[in-house]
């Protein structure tokens, strides 16, 4: 019996992997993994966005010295994280991209992650240079402007991407956390 199940699983596994392979050879042309910009995570590892491939992504842009909107966005990301079912959490990355790469170094992001109890493996913090940041913001259709050496105004958007980098949905302004969570669950389920 065990063998049968195992065989069955293997079959499914093969089938699904094959399908993945098919998708892979033609990365969807609207995938954010097409971006070739270089980033660093909170551990100082260099990466490109396609290194995030394979997991459902919840993405927000913030900056760590922000006193008003960003703490709310960060709190929402934490609520979203806590509401994602534990069996799915390893299939999800929660990605915080800084809009202030000059200030937010990898080390600073690491510090921020620690202070905010966001140091579990599902949390990814990214920093790059201003050009890559601008390009990424434009991919998200996010508006932002530096209004002083330490402050930005910016739109508040949380986006969900499928494991192959396609935009699934965006919540803007008064972000409904539960909407994001259900989108994440749906996306995880569909990409199994």
């Amino acid at each position, binding site marked *: 019996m065990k063998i049968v199940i195992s065989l069955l699983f293997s079959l499914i596994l093969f089938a699904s992997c094959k399908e993945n392979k098919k998708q*892979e050879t033609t990365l969807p042309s609207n995938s954010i993994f097409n*971006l070739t910009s270089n980033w660093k995570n909170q551990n100082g590892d260099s990466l490109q966005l396609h290194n995030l491939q*394979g997991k459902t992504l919840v993405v927000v842009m913030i900056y760590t010295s922000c006193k008003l909107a960003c703490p709310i966005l960060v709190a929402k990301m934490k609520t979203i994280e806590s509401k994602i079912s534990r069996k799915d959490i390893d299939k999800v990355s929660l990605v915080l991209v800084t809009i202030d790469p000059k200030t937010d170094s990898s080390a600073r992001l690491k510090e921020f992650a620690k202070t905010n109890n966001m140091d579990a493996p599902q949390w990814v913090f990214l920093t790059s240079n201003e050009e890559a940041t601008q390009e990424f913001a434009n991919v998200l259709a996010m*508006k932002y402007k530096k209004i002083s050496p330490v402050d930005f105004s910016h739109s508040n958007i949380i986006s969900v991407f499928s494991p192959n980098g396609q935009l699934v949905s965006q919540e803007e302004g008064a972000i409904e956390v539960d909407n994001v969570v259900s989108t994440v669950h749906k996306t995880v389920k569909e990409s199994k």
Partner: protein
Amino acid sequence: MKRLILYKLFGGILTLTFLFSCNKQKSDVASNTASIKVVSDSIGFISANVKMVYIPGGEYKPFYGSDSVRVTVAPFLMDERAVTNKEFLAFVKANPQWRKSNIKKLYSDSTYLRDWPNDLTLPENANPDAPVCYVSWFAAKAFAHSVGKRLPTLDEWEFIAMADDVSANARLKPEYSNNILDLYLQKDRQYRAVKQSKPNYWGIYNMFDLIWEWTDDFNSILTTNDSRAGQYEDKNLFCAGSAISSTDVLNYAAFMRFALRTSLKANYTVANLGFRCAKDAETQK
């Protein structure tokens, strides 16, 4: 692959493996695709023979959008005219990844180079010297890169836009905005060739009479297009209410430009939206 086979013997933990093994598969495949990729992502450089005008920059009062009332614009170089159909054709010839049939959906909506019958042919009735339109911000940026330039910033563009044909800052002249409005209200002007009208004070052509133009940081306007909340209060917000002279409120042409910019996303391609390139003044020397 060895690991994959090994794991398959243990049906119980297959679910876990699944992701893992697929991930493994992915990285293999990724390297495969990289090697068989026909279309390269790197930009092929082309030569540009458009005259660039030195703009000394200076302090200026933005129409709206800044916390500090005055903004300093550093010296820069600006193309005297917009990028033309002919030039964009040369760009896509050298850069297959930016051709109509190859462009990634991430970088453009469905109307990219809408009227081009194929990858390397201009629309039948198009003037090769008319500004190229139906190009996204991503494509405009790539073009600028290919000629060793960049897109102008919003402040740079607006700094030049203050000029009429005899003065660097004509904003206080009563006819300034109305003259631009007259130009803005004409339809289908994007089909005309560049440099057919008079240049402005700086020697820059066609700031208003042909097309809307992308700027590098077009997405830096957070004002909503909203009569009741946005445009009045937001100005108070950004400029502390004091910076708004009546001439600004009467500058309907500037309102239109800002409205247009706020309506855009970087992948949009629009019938009357093109671009010109700029460059830092230092790097030129």
